[in-house]
């Protein structure tokens, strides 16, 4: 039944820009964890007689995002006022951009099934200020914290072009990757530096007109986005099938109950009375500035992923994981530049290193492990100085101490025993103390060989070079014991 309907989704993402100060005053925008109302001044509190001054740092951050998302950037952009009354909005208007946003007609490439690429059209991107936070208490009434007030946000709006919850999730994940790569926002839904509202409608398949739209707010994780979309799809379809109308309005997602509830219907929607902010002259964006920003843009994740497969020959799976975070991709490239074994280096990063980072809850930039150290470790394995097993044992110590693998190997005498003389001695000893094995071997029981290998490794404390041992064992068995395997 559900197949006779189709869902149309548009997403509005708000992300907090990483500027040092707020959008229109010099208050620090890094308010996370601060005491309430300690990052405020007369300007962001909207006192009488104050004037906003546009923070230039924000222009560059916003341009980076717009250009990374292939938006058209106008020669002139301006700010408008959006009016509504609420205590966390001290001027009773929000400074935002209405009809001349900083970016329009962009798109974001998503990886579809296989190598398929899907373009999600981005309708517009605009700059606006955040509001404060209201806390309703039982004992001391409603409290407002203005620390967040006037912190710069970027609103990124797609066309109604996404088809289902998976696409919505892919879009959000890819968008986050891009915004983190160009370093304009932390994009963390948990701490609110990324917020997402969903616009959704359902129509009969094949119809050209869109169905009646609802807006879903209060989505606190990608999972909520997915669940809310799926919940609403079903609700719409069952209403439509029953011949009922959908009510246009704004819904709130209740994560615990797993359902939406109506916040306000269209009939009571506000008239925001937008008009150009007379305190802020329009901003000219020169072609030179755009060129400069473009020239400084880092390679975007999808492009980098493709290059990693082509240039380093690693699997597209590994490439995609590495490019999830710019720091990982950078680490990988730096290490590869020092020792050309991309496959091994990528495996080390994505297994051992990632595990250690998760365990100690640190991020890559804080870790004591540097790309040169990992490159050296892989090199030591590749040259046969240490075994893979020893390398794995060494690894946690490298991370904990920040010492290079060479230092650690030397210090603890862990380097592999590769010289024929001492290895021969070990082989002879093991054979002498296990005479019955020779019988097994003569009887053709090849499993016995594995046992011998194990005994030799044990005797050397794991330091014997296994390839060498293998060769020597064969030699000795044939020459001394006339056993040809």
């Amino acid at each position: 039944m559900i197949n006779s309907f189709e869902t149309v989704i548009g997403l509005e993402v708000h992300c907090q820009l990483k500027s040092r100060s707020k959008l229109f005053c010099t208050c620090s925008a890094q308010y996370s964890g601060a005491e309430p109302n300690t990052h405020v001044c007369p300007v962001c509190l909207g006192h009488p007689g104050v004037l906003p001054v546009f923070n230039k740092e924000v222009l560059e951050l916003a341009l980076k995002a717009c250009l990374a998302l292939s938006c058209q950037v106008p020669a002139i952009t301006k700010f408008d006022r959006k009016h509504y009354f609420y205590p966390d909005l001290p001027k009773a208007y929000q400074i935002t951009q209405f009809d001349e946003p900083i970016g329009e007609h962009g798109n974001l490439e998503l990886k579809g099934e296989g190598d398929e690429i899907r373009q999600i059209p981005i309708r517009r991107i605009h700059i606006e200020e955040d509001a404060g936070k209201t806390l309703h208490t039982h004992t001391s009434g409603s409290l407002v914290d203005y620390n967040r007030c006037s912190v710069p946000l970027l609103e990124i709006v797609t066309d109604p072009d996404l088809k289902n919850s998976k696409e919505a999730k892919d879009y959000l994940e890819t968008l986050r990757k891009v915004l983190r790569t160009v370093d304009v926002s932390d994009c963390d839904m948990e701490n609110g530096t990324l917020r997402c509202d969903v616009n959704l409608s359902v129509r009969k398949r094949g119809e050209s007109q869109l169905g009646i739209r609802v807006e879903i707010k209060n989505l606190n994780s990608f999972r909520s986005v997915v669940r809310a979309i799926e919940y609403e799809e079903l609700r719409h379809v069952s209403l439509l099938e029953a011949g009922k109308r959908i009510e246009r309005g704004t819904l709130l997602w209740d994560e615990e109950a797993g359902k939406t509830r109506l916040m306000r219907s269209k009939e009571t929607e506000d008239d925001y009375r937008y008009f150009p902010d007379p305190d802020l002259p329009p901003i000219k964006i020169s072609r030179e500035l755009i060129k400069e920003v473009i020239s400084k843009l880092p390679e975007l994740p999808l492009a980098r992923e493709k290059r990693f497969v082509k240039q380093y020959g690693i699997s597209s799976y590994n490439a995609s994981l590495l490019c999830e975070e710019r720091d990982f991709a950078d680490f990988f490239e730096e290490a590869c530049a020092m020792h050309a074994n991309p496959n091994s280096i990528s495996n080390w990063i994505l297994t051992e290193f990632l595990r250690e980072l998760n365990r100690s809850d640190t991020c890559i930039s804080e870790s004591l492990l540097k790309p040169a150290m990992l490159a050296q470790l892989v090199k030591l394995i590749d040259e046969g100085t240490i075994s893979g097993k020893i390398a794995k044992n060494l690894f946690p110590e490298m991370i904990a101490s920040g010492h290079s693998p060479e230092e650690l190997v030397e210090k603890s005498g862990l380097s592999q025993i590769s010289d024929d003389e001492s290895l021969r001695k070990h082989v002879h000893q093991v054979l002498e103390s296990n005479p019955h094995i020779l019988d097994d071997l003569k009887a053709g029981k090849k499993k016995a060989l594995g046992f011998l290998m194990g005994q030799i490794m044990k005797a050397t404390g794991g330091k014997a070079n296994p390839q060498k041992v293998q060769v020597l064992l064969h030699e000795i068995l044939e020459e001394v014991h006339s056993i040809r395997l």
Partner: protein
Amino acid sequence: MQVPLSISEIQTALKEKEFSCQELLQSYLSQIHHSNAEINAFLSVDEEMAQNYARDLDQKIAGGCSLQGLEGVFLAIKDNIHARGFETTCSSKILKGYLPAFESPAVSLLRQEGACILGKTNCDEFAMGSSNENSAFGPVRNPRDRDRVPGGSSGGSAAAVAALMCSAALGSDTGGSIRQPAAFCGVVGFKPTYGRISRRGLVAFASSLDQIGPITHTVGDASILYKIMAKPDAHDSTSLTNIDNDSLCEVRLKGATLGIVEEFFPPELDSMVQSRLESSLKNFEKAGGNLTRVSLPHLKYSLPAYYILACAEASSNLARYDSIRYGNREYPGVGIEELYQKERSLGLGDEVKRRMILGAYVLSEGYYEAFYRKAQKVRSLIRTEMENALRSCDALVGPTTPTLPFLLGSKVSDPMEMYYSDLFTVIANITSAPAISIPCQKSEDALPVGIQLIGKPFEDSKILSLAEAVENLVNP
């Protein structure tokens, strides 16, 4: 003791020890004590601070130091401009008790030059009005005839200067609020080019039109105060960064041309105003100035366009006053919707509410194009017309107001009639141009009449030197 009028005369007298600074202050204070109860020009006066200032300055003079800058000058500041140590109420109940967190650069610059801020002056609530009858703290009376209005909205500042309660004053001008009361009170009022003086610390009424300016006894004083305050301000994005180059703007009366704007002399113009203007212009011609006739065909649209734009911006700028974060809260403990309704209904006066409703209406969905957008188009049309008119002359000339100062209460019930007072002044605000009102010969009933000069935007010094040249001629 006869206190001279102009700043330079006052300073000369102080230097010559004709009177002391304390005597000068005493003269102002006694005027205030004697008349302010009736005239109601001052809302607050810091006598103690002023006494200390005067004593210190007298010691300095006694010690042989020469007077610097604005030393010995006592200023009154309109109560919508932040001055340290004084409340800023904007003559509104809703801001009663509000102490500003900072001082406006205009006031700070004057203080840095040595001026003393004597007090804050009454005005129409949030600078909305043309008669100073819209103050929550009572109307101001015209010192020249106390049954008449002083004009508005800077009525308190103009009246304080005219009543010799201070040396000079600051006002703010959004649609004529400096020039019209200056004309009604018989003093000089100058509105500089928009953005010339920082708007920071001036409580916004209509941000794209507001401008601080001086109200003084002489054009020379206006020029002195203007030059001190006209500084670029990095914290006001609309502040002008180009310097007003006065050396290029020196104007001599001989050979200067004034453009008589046809539309400034409509049939309904008060006949006394008309005759005083005409005789002033004749004097100007006799002294070697040239007169030419120019036309601003769309001038009649400037008033409706102005009221649309000003009300729209006001409805936005004044939306913040809810008594939650500052101001005077009357209804603690009510729900949020009720709080907005009650505090704003009670805290704001009728004229303010009228303009906010008008403004909200013209900005609302479906009406924006018909009103706000169209008003912006009128604005640019009139700007072009004015540029054209100023090609053939150095300044436009006409009466500052269409009528003589009117009787208190005579227009309060008819807002349209009241708005008509701004007919000749709003054009300077919607075109950003500098404009000045200078007193000319009084009417037969000894009521003041003002002559207005409007210059090209950015040519503030030129209009001031032209006004100085005209000043003595028109007021023989």
